[in-house]
């Protein structure tokens, strides 16, 4: 298994690590059982622009790199633009991931959507195309499945 130079760069020097106090939205996805948890904090202004974004991740090199890349891709964007982030766009931006690590990019996409959902809930608005995240560390989604994927 070999990581791309971009993955190694984002693992070695992850962008936007940290927390945001009183964040506009926070999303946590993944499961410790499966070895990766991502949490994304968003600071969103009145015009729905993501002014700042931070992340914390428990997981492998790819989990850290995909979180880092996802935060870079949505920083400064309108929430509608951020909603367009897919695991594919995260992977492409990282010059690909080993097959066994693709789920990390899915988790990064889910983490962004979970944070946006939290923002929408807090603000009492509905964002078109955004559904309640199915995957959350508190609902034991992975454990129900009995396996990690």
């Amino acid at each position, binding site marked *: 298994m070999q990581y791309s130079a971009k993955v190694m760069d984002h*693992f070695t020097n992850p962008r936007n690590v940290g927390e945001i106090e009183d964040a506009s939205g926070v999303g946590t996805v993944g499961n410790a059982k499966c070895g990766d*948890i991502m*949490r994304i904090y968003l600071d969103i202004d009145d015009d729905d622009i993501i002014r700042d974004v931070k992340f914390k991740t428990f*997981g492998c090199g790819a989990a*850290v790199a995909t979180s880092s890349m996802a935060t870079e891709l949505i920083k400064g964007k309108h929430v509608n633009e951020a909603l367009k982030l897919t695991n594919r766009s995260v992977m492409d931006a990282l010059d690909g991931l080993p097959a*066994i690590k693709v789920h990390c990019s899915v988790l990064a996409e889910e983490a962004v959507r979970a944070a946006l959902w939290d923002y929408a809930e807090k603000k009492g608005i509905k964002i078109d195309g955004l559904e309640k995240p199915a995957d959350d560390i508190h609902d034991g989604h992975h454990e129900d499945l009995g396996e*990690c994927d």
Partner: protein
Amino acid sequence: MPNTIYLDNAATTKLKPEVLDAMMPFLTERYGNPSSVHKFGADCNTACEDARRSIANLINAKDNEIYFTSGGSESDNWAIKSVAYAKRDKGRHIITSGIEHHAVMETCEFLAREGFEVTFVGVDNQGIIKLDELKAAIRPDTILISVIYANNEIGTIQPIKEIGAIARSKGIIFHTDAVQAFGHIPIDVEKENINLLSASAHKIHGPKGVGMLYIKNSVRLLPMIHGGPHERKRRAGTLNVPGIVGFGKAAELAKASMEKNNAELIKLRNYAIDRILKEIPYSRLNGDRDRRLPGNINISFRFIEGESMLMMVDMKGIAASTGSACASGSLDPSHVLLAIGLPHEIAHGSIRMTMSEFTTKEELDHTIEALKEVVAKLRSMSPLYEDAVRNKEV
């Protein structure tokens, strides 16, 4: 301080210069086939028989009980499948442990799909097999007990003599995968009632691609590789002469230095374990503190994941291993760490550092400092750690 610190000796070891010197002539001018009648052949045959003697000496076996193979996995496959097929009219039940190497575990699972029944006996939280459970698992149709001599991940040394006595009293064949133990700790196949034993050269500073299966003379075993009359008609194929000669030399060196090396290794190991547990909070030792291989250190750090830990220490020039899923090519953490009762998230946060006689205290000190930095950095990035701080658990 050297540029790189190698702490993955359970994966493989550095070839000793003396071993390479012993092998070189057989990679160059002494290229005969040991089966040939002429002098080229006889010369190589003698060299292989000398190696066989050195290897037999290390475990108190007879020369003609050592059969060369391509390595530990072949030996495990051969021992287990061939007992199963040879004895299937007597019974179809096999007992093994829950902490075997994949070469044993997967072979047993293969046989289970072929209509054999396999009982995986549990281990306690230190990784020692539960002898009561083992005894209780024995049935009239049990044909084989296979238990790893010392575990490759957590280094736990099993009560092999007791297991051998149990197997003997019931007339059951006893195999042990001794890949991590052979040449590292004293083994006596006679006293320990071992019928079959797998070992490998590259774990004892020998070359890769060569191993052996000890087959006690009273045990009849089917060949796994059919062909010529090599290895007393039990394992066909032209002998890997340079590999075998290197294996023999490595075994000879291991025997000569084992006692002295181990006294030093155990001191270093305990020093490193004590320092890590004391200086890095929320760390735990995996496996039994005393009944463990002299060179094995396996520690879990809470709130962080093993692969990222490995990658970060690798950047600091330190080579180690982990039981985390992310590094194993699967998505579940090590079955060994789960078998000793670790929750998944703590199993994911394990690091294995395995030393050799070349490991120095200076290297360990450097590694511990690196670990302190890496663990702190990863915890500062960990949502699990953040939650633990928020909930005042740490």
